[in-house]
Structure formats: structure tokens, C-alpha cells
């Protein structure tokens, strides 16, 4: 089980340049909207033709510009779950699923597979419904059923949960995760949602402006994104220029402080990132006086904006997020950060 993608395509002003290796399991591709996530999936599925490069799935060449190989989407055997699910609006759920069984010539096997998938996806009672009569979650199940019966070697999920209401999203993520794990096929999921990627994917890559970088284990990448773009994509709220000032120390000019780090600092360090949750009023290290600036309340969390005492008045404030039940009665006079929570960020070509 393996997927190898090395492709380039020039869209006139936007260059898609993807290098991706996927061994097995569920892999995530995290990127902001318009960064080329969907184009990557479309290239793998054969809907978009890259200018050059090579795509190999389980040893089978799907695309190779040098050998002039370009298999049609019909024979690539790659399932694609579209963001809007793309159920055929004029066909019932059952007919939609039968479209996924068009390669199966034996009528009895076709019927059997249909019944199985209807039952597995809890769609039996909806088999005669038209797509627009289904809820978002039901549409997602029907679209997944249609793809799964076609038995693809690789499953591409394009923002699978973005069309759903947020309260449905979490429970469906658990269901889909279970389904995909039981199904045991390779999955490539793209999303702009950190939570989705973190929940569902054991491995991930980051994508920004058409370029894939930072492939690795999901937990490792969130713990140490390594680049500025990676820190932004993984949701780091505080990113600020920094330079090396000691083997385990960086200087942050904008904040007027020096921070101890958990990891040795490389020569090329250009910035640091500190996640908004990681400030602590009881920390013992990297403790500096702070000045309250503003606050934003959410149902269960509060975001407090503050500046360091040495920071200029009109500079960007620092974000500190804290669950409401742990919120101290009054703004602490100083805050600290554990050294291992100072993320060291390097230029992209110099990790």
C-alpha cells in the first residue's frame, strides 16, 4: 500500500508543486483555503492533469509526464468524496450507489453489495429518497457508500465535514474514523480544520501556496511545526521574530525579553511561536511582567490580550487563552512559559 505523488502545474500566477509519499493508513493534508489542497486531490484522481511529474499508486503508474502516461479517472480506481458530496440529484440513494457498482457485471453480486452497504451505512430506509431530501450527514453517508462499493484502492476526502453543521461534525467524525479504520484502505484527507486532521489522521503534511512541506506524524508536527507557515496552520496564535542568543535561549526584540528554550537553538532560527494556551501564571520559568490590553469571551474559554512590560504600546498584543474555570480573579502581573513550549521556527529551506 503506497502512494507517491511528485507533480507540478502552473496555473498562471499559482504554482502547484506537490511532493508527497504516503505509506498506509489515513494521511491528512492541512492547508488554508485556496492553497492547492483540492487541486492536489484532483490531480491524483485524474480530474486535473499536471504539467509534469509522476503519480504512482501501489506500484501502478497513474500519471507520468515523461512516459506520456495519463490514465483516465475511470480506470484509476481512486475514490473521491467531494466537499458537497456530489450525489446525482436526479437519482435516488439506491441508484446513486448502483452508479458506484457499474464495474460489477454480475447482477446478483451487485444486489448483494448494494444491500450490504445500505445496511452498513444505515441507509436502508432512505434507499428511495432523493439527495435533496436527505440531511447533510445522510448525504455524506450516501456519498461514502457510493464510493466504498466501488472498491477503490485509495480514498480521497476533500473537506469531508465542512458542509455539515458544527454540532453534527464531531459525532460524524467519530463514526467516519471508525468506518475508515475498519475499511482498512489508504485515505488521503484534505482539510483546513486542525481538529479534523488531528482527530482522524495519524500522519499529515502541511500545504501552503501550492507547496507541500513538513510531512510527519500528526502529533509531532503539532508539537513542533518547525516553520512559520507550519505554526500558523497548526493554529499557533503568537508568532514573533526572534534570534539566537544562547544555546538554549532566544531573544525576542519585539517583546523586549529573552526566552529559555527546551531544545537547542539552531543558528538559522528566525521566529518563535507560543500557543495561546501555554502561558501560565504559576510557571517558574520565562516569567515576565505583563500588561492587560483586552479580552474576548467565548462560551467556555476566555482570550486575554496582553503586552509585555517592555513592548511598544501599539504593537500586536499577545494572546493567552484559558478555560473559564481556571481563570484567576484578576489579571496576573506576570506570566511564564515552560521552555519546552517555546516553538523554534526556521525558514522553510533551512530546517
Amino acid at each position: 500500500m503506497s502512494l507517491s505523488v511528485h507533480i507540478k502545474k502552473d496555473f498562471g500566477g499559482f504554482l502547484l508543486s506537490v511532493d508527497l509519499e504516503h505509506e498506509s493508513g489515513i494521511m491528512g493534508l492541512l492547508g488554508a483555503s485556496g492553497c492547492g489542497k483540492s487541486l492536489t486531490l484532483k490531480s491524483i484522481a485524474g480530474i486535473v492533469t499536471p504539467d509534469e511529474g509522476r503519480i504512482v499508486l501501489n506500484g501502478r503508474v497513474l500519471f507520468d509526464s515523461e512516459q506520456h502516461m495519463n490514465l483516465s479517472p475511470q480506470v484509476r480506481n481512486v475514490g473521491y468524496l467531494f466537499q458537497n458530496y456530489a450525489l446525482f440529484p436526479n437519482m435516488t440513494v439506491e441508484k446513486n450507489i448502483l452508479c458506484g457498482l457499474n464495474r460489477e457485471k454480475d447482477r446478483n453480486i451487485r444486489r448483494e453489495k448494494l444491500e450490504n452497504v445500505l445496511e452498513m451505512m444505515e441507509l436502508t430506509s432512505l434507499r428511495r429518497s432523493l439527495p435533496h431530501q436527505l440531511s447533510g450527514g445522510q448525504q455524506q453517508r450516501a456519498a461514502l457508500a457510493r464510493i466504498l462499493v466501488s472498491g477503490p484502492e485509495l480514498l480521497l476526502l476533500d473537506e469531508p465535514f465542512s458542509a455539515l453543521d458544527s454540532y453534527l461534525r464531531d459525532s460524524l467524525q467519530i463514526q467516519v474514523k471508525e468506518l475508515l479504520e475498519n475499511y482498512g484502505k489508504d485515505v488521503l484527507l484534505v482539510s483546513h480544520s486542525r481538529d479534523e486532521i488531528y482527530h482522524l489522521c495519524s500522519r499529515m503534511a502541511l500545504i501552503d501556496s501550492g507547496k507541500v512541506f513538513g510531512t510527519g506524524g500528526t502529533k509531532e508536527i503539532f508539537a513542533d511545526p518547525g516553520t512559520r507557515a507550519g505554526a500558523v496552520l497548526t493554529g499557533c496564535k503568537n508568532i514573533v521574530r526572534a534570534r539566537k542568543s544562547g544555546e538554549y535561549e532566544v531573544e525576542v526584540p519585539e517583546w523586549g525579553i529573552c526566552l529559555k528554550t527546551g531544545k537547542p537553538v539552531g543558528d538559522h532560527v528566525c521566529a518563535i511561536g507560543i500557543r495561546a494556551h501555554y502561558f501560565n501564571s504559576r510557571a517558574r520559568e520565562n516569567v515576565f511582567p505583563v500588561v492587560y490590553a483586552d479580552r474576548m469571551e467565548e462560551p467556555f474559554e476566555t482570550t486575554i490580550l496582553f503586552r509585555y512590560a517592555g513592548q511598544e504600546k501599539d504593537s500586536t498584543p499577545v494572546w493567552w487563552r484559558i478555560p473559564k474555570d481556571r481563570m484567576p480573579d484578576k489579571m496576573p502581573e506576570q506570566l511564564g512559559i515552560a521552555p519546552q513550549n517555546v516553538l523554534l521556527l526556521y525558514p522553510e529551506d533551512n530546517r
Partner: protein
Amino acid sequence: MDWYPLINSLRIAAISCVMVFFAGIFAAYYVARLPRAIKGILDVFLTLPMVLPPTVCGYFLLLIFGLKRPLGMLLSQWGIQFAMTWYGGILTSAVVAFPLMYRTARGAFESFDVTLAYAGQTLGLSNTYIFWNIRMPACRQGILAGTVLAFARALGEYGATSMLIGYIPGKTATISTTVYQLWRTNDEAGALFWVLVNMAISTVVLLIVNMLECRNGKAGAS
């Protein structure tokens, strides 16, 4: 009572409508996928018959298919003669009605959610199947509207038809040329009769379309 103009008009309109249906859809499908520059030029060319006076279309058709023109002479060797025959009316009606079908179908195709076609391809469905079973039903409203417009235009075609096939009672007479001929010869009652016949046909066609749309709306796709 001579019903020939009615029969002639209906068969001309029906046959040209079928021709225009397929020609318009395929032109729309392929033109919609062309690069922008070529699309612009082809679009002007294919839409011209709609904005030109029908007599100008008739003039061009006479230039091509006239009895003393090369193509007209060539075709007459096989006994095909578009000038002054009833089936010449099919040609004129089709040319004039084509842009209506082409433009409405193109509009429908361009608003088609192309991810449906992609989804079909990744599921292994052939492009032909996707076209007839997914794209066409999704564009049904626009295509139906285009067909009706084309049929109505073909039925009412006068200018190009009178240029190419003239008015021969019992041979090339259509409802519209008959109305003009009877009016010209001071047979007001006759002219009014054919006017009413024409209105009746148009009304029935539009009613049928409305009924079809209602039914589709209930059964069908959002």
C-alpha cells in the same frame, strides 16, 4: 377546407426542432469547453442567425442552395432541391431557430455543477453515460426551455422561409406565409383563421411545457 399549411408548418417545425435539439446541445457542450478566444468567435458566428433579419438569412441560404448556385446544382443531380420545396423550410427554420437552442443549452451547461461529472468519472462511469444520465437531467430545465423556444420560432418562421421556398399553395405554403398571402389578396377572414390556428398551437405547446415543468419540479432535483 385546405389544411395543408397546418400540416406543412407542423412537420417543418417538428423536424427542424429535432435537428436543432441535437445540433444545439452538441454545439453548446463543445463550445462551452473551448478556450475563451475561440469560444468568443464561434459564439458570434453561431448566434448571428438570431440577430440578423430572417430575410438576410434567407438571402444567404439562396446564395448557397439557389438553383443556379454550384451547391444547389450539385445537390439537384441527386434530386435534392432546397429552393421552392417544402423541406427547404426545414433548412430555413433550423438555421433561424438554432441559436435559441444553442444559447439556452449553453447557459444550462455552464451552470451545471461540474463536480457531478467528476464524481461520475471517478466512480468509473463512461463520459457518454454521464452526459445523458447526469448532465442532461441536471440541465433539463434549460434544455426544455430551449427546445420550446426553438419549436415556437420554427413554427412562426416567415422571412427566410418566404425567401427560399416562397409560397406555392399545396406545396410550400406554411401558416405564416399563408397568413401573409391571404391578407395580401384581401381575404381577411382566411388570414384571421390561420392566425387563430397559429395562436392555438402556440398556446397548447406552452401549456404542455408548463405542465411538464410542474411535474418535474415535484418529482425532481433541486
